[in-house]
């Protein structure tokens, strides 16, 4: 990592085999994303947003070129190292929240810390802090089924943020939310980005999200069509 750059992508290509040939999902991607950015991968369906997010999140590997995330070359990591990178430094927010239904809010947020084998007192401190960030202290004992969609997504944000990762990756985080909840969620994430200097990277084509972005990376047919900073 140099000069606060958390992600450096160089001449990256991603191909998926189809029959005897392949489908090129990403082509000639060159990007750097720094600490504290609030960036979005924007584009229509099939433009390569989620594929790029997968590679940054070490869920997938490039076919050619290099994707360096937090000093780790994603293509060089084995499955265990990839899992460790995600576990220690990356947070994930999903479109459909994906909370574990049998656990309450507190326990859902606690899960990533359990995987880090953190001691109980420290876990409690961090979970309470994360619940304070998203304003869900009063719902700590509630199960996901007892929460609204907006509250579920806030739990999801708390779960992604609880270990205070360097980077949070969010795939269409407002797709299942109404306008008011979407704005609340985005404001929460923007506040966390500002206060904690956490880098947020979205994959979205939702205008509500796009208007909050500080940097908009537009993808089209697997290529970066435009990369622009947005003045706020």
């Amino acid at each position, binding site marked *: 990592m140099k000069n606060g750059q958390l992600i450096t992508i160089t001449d990256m290509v991603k191909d998926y085999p189809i029959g005897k040939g392949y489908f090129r999902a990403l082509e000639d991607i060159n990007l750097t994303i720094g600490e504290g950015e609030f960036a979005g991968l924007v584009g229509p369906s099939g433009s390569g947003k989620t594929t790029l997010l997968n590679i940054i999140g070490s869920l997938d590997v490039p076919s050619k070129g290099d994707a360096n995330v937090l000093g780790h070359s994603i293509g060089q990591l084995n499955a265990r190292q990839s899992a460790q990178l995600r576990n220690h430094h990356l947070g994930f927010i999903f479109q459909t929240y994906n909370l574990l239904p*049998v656990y309450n809010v507190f326990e859902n947020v606690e899960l990533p810390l359990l995987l880090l084998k953190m001691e109980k007192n420290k876990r409690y401190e961090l979970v309470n802090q994360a619940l304070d960030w998203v304003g869900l202290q009063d719902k700590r004992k509630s199960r996901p089924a007892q929460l609204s969609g907006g509250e579920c997504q806030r739990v999801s944000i708390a779960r992604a943020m609880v270990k205070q990762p360097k980077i949070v990756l969010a795939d269409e985080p407002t797709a299942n939310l109404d306008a008011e909840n979407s704005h609340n969620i985005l404001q929460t994430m923007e506040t966390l980005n500002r206060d904690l200097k956490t880098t947020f990277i979205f994959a979205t084509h939702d205008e509500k999200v796009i208007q909050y972005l500080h940097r908009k990376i537009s993808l089209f047919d697997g290529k970066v069509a435009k990369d622009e900073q947005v003045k706020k």
Partner: protein
Amino acid sequence: MITFIIKGLLRDRHRSLFPVIMVTIGVFITVFFQAFMGGILTDMVDSTARFSTGHVKIMSRAYMENEDQLPNDLALTGVDAIMQDLKQKYPDITWVKRIKYGGLLDIPDENGETRSQGAVAGFGVDLHNPKSTEISTLNIANSIVSGRMPDKPGEILISDEMARDLKIALGDKATLISSTMFGSMAIYNFKVVGTIKFGIPMMDRGAMIADISDIQEALNMEDAAGEILGYLPGGVYDDKVCAKIADNFNAGYTDNESGFAPVMSKLQEISGLSDYLALANNMASTIAMIFVIIMSIVLWNAGLLGGLRRYGEVGVRLAIGEHKGHVYSSLLVESVAIGLVGSVIGTGIGLMMAYWMQTKGWDFSNTMKNVNMMIPLVFRARITSVTYYIGFFPGLISTLLGTALAGVGIYKRQTASLFKELET
């Protein structure tokens, strides 16, 4: 993490209750079946040992070859000397002599003419000797339906069923018509002083129990007996001990080529019992193996269904950085917990039911009137040390195996598809 897993198990009944019930039922059936079948086989072997074979049995070689015909003309002679020798060499073993005989029991009327007549399968056993163990071995005192134990020469017990069929009353005179050891006709008068029911169809059809000295006199078998039986201390059969005793005994007669020379056999070698005992010994492991296979398949399927239900959960856990091996091992931990709980409950219920069946038994008397085996009419379970773990370990192993098979799918999941998969 263990607490986290246990919380999930307790709260998600689909994940815990269903598999626990499955394991419980499987373990219960295994435990109960083992105790019940083991009880029947053990009772059968025990009855055979008590009534027919002893733990070891000495006959003359010729008698042994025709044992089914009760050939008392080929009986052992010099029995008292053999008995004395045996008691000296093997003082811990209880040695008894018996004469089995067949014949007709003739019941005369007041004029001495035949009033009724029936075939008997008789036992001449040591009834009058106060040190005799035969009364307890054959459970004679407890099996008396009416009347009393014979305590004077010439007194006999007959089966209650035969007494009713032949309309024999207590105190009636009964004449045994049989053949002597030397082939001539034997006619001997007895007095019926009691009726008896052993609860074993083969014995209850036409049994006649008399003191061996009376039978020796009736059949001209002075110092002779059809067989000498030996019972190990505690009444528990030990094949190795019996084999050693039999080998030692038989070694003393290898040079004697006479058909009347004594030969000792152990319980397993007599009456084809070796097959039954082998079956009894193999039954436990066979039941356990079948259980493991069936339950593993069932729990494998249950695990696959559970895997579908928890597809999202596993996806999230993989996405946030839990290694596949860790997810897999956490499922195995869950299965161990389920297996433990199910196995403990199943074993407990199985033991309770087996104990009930051991105490009360299951009366099959109506369906076994014509059975020709030494098998009791009331089937009872028997709880042994094996009963305590016969279901427990298979319950645990099958749960673990079923989950291990179902969980393999975790390793096939592509992390690259997680975002897409978790959108649905």
